[in-house]
């Protein structure tokens, strides 16, 4: 199971993972983690734990690209965490206006709300579909890289991605419809 391979570098010879390149990937990993966890606080913990594990010792990259490696490490760390999560209390997500992660000077409250809706819609997907969308649309992996990370065929990733996007689009459309109904009521 992939979740048990967290400390194993990808197979094949390749460039070493350069820690200096990692901070530039924090934003993408954080968004991915939030979409996976459905909580900004859990996402922060997950990213921190992932980087701590990855940087614990030198790593080799298959194609010189750290993103697939980090996505796999994030996924594995998450799956490992899931196994122990049932043994501890869950943290509830703060409302939008209380979440420090949404206190961006660029993000107006309604925009922050839309973004949280998008992340919530992704978090509601089944795991297989969520992983496909996160790997491709958030982390920016190619279909092939995403398939390698998840351990499935490229064709499977693309159909999962299609259905995941469809579900997210419908969820956001329904939310928009509900909001419009409230405003007109």
């Amino acid at each position, binding site marked *: 199971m992939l979740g048990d391979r967290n400390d194993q570098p990808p197979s094949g010879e390749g460039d070493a993972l350069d820690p200096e390149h990692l901070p530039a990937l924090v934003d993408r990993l954080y968004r991915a983690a939030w979409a996976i966890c459905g909580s900004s606080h859990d996402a*922060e913990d997950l990213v921190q734990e992932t980087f701590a594990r990855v*940087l614990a010792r030198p790593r080799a990259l298959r194609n010189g690209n750290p993103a697939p490696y980090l996505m796999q490490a994030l996924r594995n760390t998450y799956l490992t965490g899931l196994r122990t999560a049932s043994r501890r209390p869950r943290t509830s997500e703060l409302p939008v206006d209380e979440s420090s992660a949404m206190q*961006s000077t660029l993000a107006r409250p309604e925009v922050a709300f*839309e973004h949280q809706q998008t992340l919530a819609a992704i978090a509601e997907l089944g795991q297989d579909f969520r992983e496909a969308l996160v790997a491709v*649309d958030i982390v920016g992996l190619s279909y092939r890289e995403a398939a390698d990370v998840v351990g499935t065929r490229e064709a499977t990733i693309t159909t999962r991605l*299609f*259905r995941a996007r469809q579900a*997210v689009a419908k969820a*956001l459309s329904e939310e928009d419809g509900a909001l419009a109904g409230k405003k007109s009521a």
Partner: protein
Amino acid sequence: MGVTMESENGRLSDLVLAELAAFADGSLPPAERARVAERVARSPHLQSLVAEQRASVMAVALLDVPTPPRLREAVAAVALRTAPEPPAATEGEPRVRRLLPRLPRLAIAGGLATVLASGALAVVVASAGAPSISDTVELGELGATAAAPAVSPRNDAWLAASVDGVAFPNYPRETGWQRSGRRVDEFDGREATTVYYRRGDEEAAYSIVSGEPLDWPDGARLAERDGVELRSLRYEGAMVVTWLRDGHTCVIASEDADTKELLELAAWTEKGKASA
């Protein structure tokens, strides 16, 4: 929310769904893209499916979720502790020399031939095949060789620098991005002019290539702003957005800014400003 669209998509094969997903995000190869576009154009049902795909892609691309500073600092601190010692730099060594190993696909014609063109030092290079978006990004990574162009005396929305009449933007002060330098390069008979913009410690390289449009890069994501198709991709640690302006390939790349911001910077020039 479950994934319950099987009945709606039931008449379509997985192959078609996969093609529609790739068509919607711009990663479908050009040859297949034309075929799928034709099929989509004939079917309102497929059009609605593609619209859903794009709505999701755009919603995700526009996510503005700032990373908590404490998380960024924690990761940077760990990375700093584990980073290998950098090789000792030679005092006065030009930046172009240090960055040359990052040009794997470019065969340098006659060594590094530097010429003066438009007041900027240029590197004349020849690539193994037709110039590509990645070639342009790599040239941009070499750094500025001349001062930033002046603001256009006719319209302060633009700079007094252009390629075949396609001018570089003078981003409004409120964006924080200010012009900082430029370079001009020639490859395969084309001119690639790059203007650099800085915002604090962040840098972005905006290049315009003369002549016919370059091929779209493989695996790029498709986005749309104000009716303009923009393609984004990652290349060697940099985020890259490429699009066409008046039939010319434009490329903006940065290791500091994220895709959303680069899309904004790219789309800015298409917001109805009068040309310089």
